[in-house]
């Protein structure tokens, strides 16, 4: 039998499934799906644990770490992302993809790929905070309710991607 690890769900079906989850998210919780929001909460609670006094007085943290408020980890987005992790593992296990690998073009070294991944992560970290969300929280959740911000984000992220694609083609092709 052919190896399942290179099989993927029909993209439209996968999109339909994600769309349904988005509808449930808005119906039950009143908010969209997110990715970077959970990262932010992790960072906030980390900084708070290391230096509570600093976190209490810095604008960016203050609103989430005041005395008496529940931990930033006790939130919808954190549980949602925990679910995402479990879902991804279930699916990867089903398709037999649950192994340690580095995904990259054959023409670059592992080291190059890792450095690029860290750099890309840094850019997303800054971008998602400045833009109030990432692909899921800003663009997809925004588009789901016709928010102007979602379409600005869509144009900028994909526009930016195509703008810079030429310069980084060696990483991928």
């Amino acid at each position, binding site marked *: 039998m052919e190896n399942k690890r290179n099989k993927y769900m029909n993209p439209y079906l996968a999109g339909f499934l994600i769309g349904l989850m988005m509808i449930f998210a808005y119906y039950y919780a009143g908010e969209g*799906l997110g990715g970077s929001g959970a990262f932010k909460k992790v960072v906030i609670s980390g900084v708070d644990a290391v230096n509570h006094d600093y976190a209490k007085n810095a604008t960016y943290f203050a609103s*989430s770490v005041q005395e008496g*408020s529940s931990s930033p980890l006790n939130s919808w*987005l954190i549980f949602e992302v925990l679910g995402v992790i479990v879902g991804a593992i279930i699916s990867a296990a089903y398709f037999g993809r649950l192994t340690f690998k580095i995904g990259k073009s054959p023409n670059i070294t592992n080291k190059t790929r890792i450095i690029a991944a860290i750099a890309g992560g840094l850019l997303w970290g800054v971008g998602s*905070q400045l833009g*109030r969300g990432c692909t*899921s929280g800003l663009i997809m959740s925004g588009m789901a309710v016709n928010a102007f911000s979602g379409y600005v984000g869509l144009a900028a992220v994909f526009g930016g991607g195509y703008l810079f694609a030429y310069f980084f083609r060696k990483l991928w092709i």
Partner: protein
Amino acid sequence: MKGLDKFIILIVLVGGIWLVLSSGKPNLHQITPEKMLSCINKQERCVSTDEVAKFIMGKDPSVILVDVRTEEEYKKFSLPGSINIPFDSVLNENFSSYVNQDIYKIIFYSNGNTLADKTWLVCRGLDYKNIYVMTGGLNEWVKTILRPVKPSDTESSDAFAMYEFRKGASKYFGGGGSDGTSSSVGAPAPSAPKGNKKKKAGGGCE
């Protein structure tokens, strides 16, 4: 394209067409007021207290604020520049000439939402144009503009920007700034409007 591709795309397209067809305007004369309220897109009907504050501060000539409470209540406290048309006299010919036009933006307000909503419904039923309701009424006005509360939830940036605006507006209307000091105008503290408590969801992917 494969069969499944076409099938899903077809579902989405049919959904899109259904959506366009279903968003037609309901027939206003045949349904109950409650249904009418819920059917009509809130954005078409509601103006926030912040927007009203902006109109007043900017002395916007295209806006008429209409107090639909009784005359006594109007005399005790009202928004600057507003006129008084009590609910029961909205259909009065003297007053309907104010309301039935399409030059000015008419914003109704009462203590809560109820009376202003009723007025709006009556006028909408008569096919009057450019009519709105100030969300939450004077209760909301006192809470948000005269005595704004410093935000403490996680969606800080928005909330803080709005808070800054409200602090300024509060000074303008003599509401005594940010904290809970009693306001200098004899603002009424009418009973809170009925209805379910609506907590704004916060968070998202920020």
